[in-house]
């Protein structure tokens, strides 16, 4: 076919489908169960909390996979898919029983593996650090009015009065200005959790997005190591004794 006779629209679709990321996504076992064609009806979008607040659309996610354009997929993996709240409303309402939620989850895993997630997740550094070192994902001090628009306007109002409200609640509370965890997990529990992260390879995966966090966690573990390992031995011995 000569250059002039090419149809720019169909050519664009044909030439870009079937790229590397597309193939990786289609290999995931969840996709077949999650996409049965799409009516473009918008039921998913109408019910989607992420679509209400961000430039994001579960319908677009389904259409994007159907079309399979590699550039668009890459763009989504770097950005839009991270807006989904994983609430599954889309799945339970879709007349085709599609699940943008599952497609997004599969894409997120691939994005992490393929090194596409770092920028989108940069804003979550503090959350990841807190999970890995304290076992909580949010601490009251992390709530800033602009970070979570989906929590609604009341959050902005509340956070502006944060200090006064705390003072009212806890008069003379030590460390008034630092509330760095939502609840306290024991050191031992945190150490166990960190070991699970480490031994399962999850910590390494986290490292692909937040490399410096691996060092922080390892330092944290080293500090407690002697004491905690001793406790582990103690527990093991107790368990053995109880078996006899």
């Amino acid at each position, binding site marked *: 076919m000569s250059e002039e006779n090419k149809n720019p629209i169909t050519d664009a679709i044909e030439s870009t489908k079937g790229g590397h990321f597309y193939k990786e996504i289609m290999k995931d076992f969840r996709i077949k169960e999650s996409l049965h064609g799409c009516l473009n009806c*918008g039921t998913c979008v*109408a019910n989607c909390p992420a679509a209400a607040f961000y430039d994001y659309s579960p319908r677009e996610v389904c259409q994007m996979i159907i079309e399979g354009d590699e550039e668009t997929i890459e763009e989504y993996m770097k950005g839009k898919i991270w807006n989904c709240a994983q609430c599954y409303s889309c799945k339970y309402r879709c007349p085709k*029983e599609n699940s943008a939620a599952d497609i997004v989850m599969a894409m997120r895993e691939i994005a992490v593996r393929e090194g596409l997630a770092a920028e989108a997740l940069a804003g979550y550094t503090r959350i990841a650090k807190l999970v890995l070192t304290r076992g909580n994902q949010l601490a009251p001090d992390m709530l800033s009015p602009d970070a979570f628009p989906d929590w609604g306007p009341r959050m902005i109002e509340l956070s502006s009065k944060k200090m006064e409200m705390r003072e009212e609640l806890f008069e003379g509370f030590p460390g008034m200005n630092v509330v760095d965890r939502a609840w306290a997990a024991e050191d031992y529990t945190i150490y166990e959790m960190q070991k699970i992260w480490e031994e399962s390879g999850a910590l390494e995966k986290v490292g692909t997005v937040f490399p410096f966090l691996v060092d922080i966690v390892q330092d944290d573990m080293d500090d407690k190591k002697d004491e905690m390992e001793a406790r582990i031995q103690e527990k093991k011995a107790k368990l053995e004794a109880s078996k006899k």
Partner: protein
Amino acid sequence: MKTVLVIGGGVTGLKASSELAEMGYNVALVEKEDYLGGQVAKHKYYKLAPDLRLAGEVIDPVIKAVESNSNIKVYKHSHVVAVSGNAPEFKAKIKNSKGESEESFGAIVVATGFDHFDPTVKQEYGYGRFKDVVTNAEVEEMLNPNGSTKGQLKRPSDGKTPKKIAIFQCVGSRDRQVGNPYCCRVGCVVSTKQAIEIKEKYPDSEVYVYYMDMRMFGRGWEELYGKAMEDYEIIFTRGRGAEVTLKNQQLSLRAEETIMDRPIQHSVDMIILAAGMAAGEGTIDAAKVLGIKQNDYGFLSPKDDFLSPNESSKPGIFIAGADKGPMDIENCIVEGAAVAAKVAGSLKN
């Protein structure tokens, strides 16, 4: 001359009965309700799509043709409870409040029709919870001068005339969540017709139709759709109605405006659900008594959809009309006549 048993006195069964009687056959027409005319009579359909012709102009002559023909014996409020034998020698037990009788028939026609899909199971639409969410069948009855509201469109909650009305298409159809992936084949034209009727009666009202595709494939349907937009300023929004809530005593709907790519919320006074067609209980009962095949959705399966559309899976038992799947009245009348010809042919052999 053999007698033919026709089960179901809707437009299809009526047409089949009168055609057979005209050919000289005796007919026993068994109808479970105490009136003839099927869903058209039950919900007092007022005007028919696409011509906005009075339903009575169509259904009354069909009923009259049956009632005035001495070859037809009508059993109202009756059921066929048992059938034995094979073509062309069937025995059927007909039961009603007066008792039970057994009679012999040469052939059986099943014209048991459909039931309106019950939207209660689509909980997100609030039907049954919010009084002003109504079905298209209920609106048919309201618009009829002989209906419950004497032809006025009224909100069930307070009897007021709604100003903003939204119509949801495809309720209980094209929906795997409720097990009905098929298209109801009349919802689009019926909603367009109802929107026009409402605008004619209440020119100040605003009518919005939330749709996925407007399937206007019938005679004059596309033209009706054009008229709705051009002459009546009915607003068609491409997006399926997704959810209904009550905010400050007002209905609020959610959908996506899929052409603009944005989720919307819309406050309205009344929501009409274009509930589709489901296989009726009467059809499922009849299939059981006769032992004929149904498809995945409960409708009756023809022996061959292309080659023997009016034959059931059993010789001597014939099927026609909306018990085979969604069908409009025009096609039901064609089916009624076609099945009569098929029965006559089978009895000659």
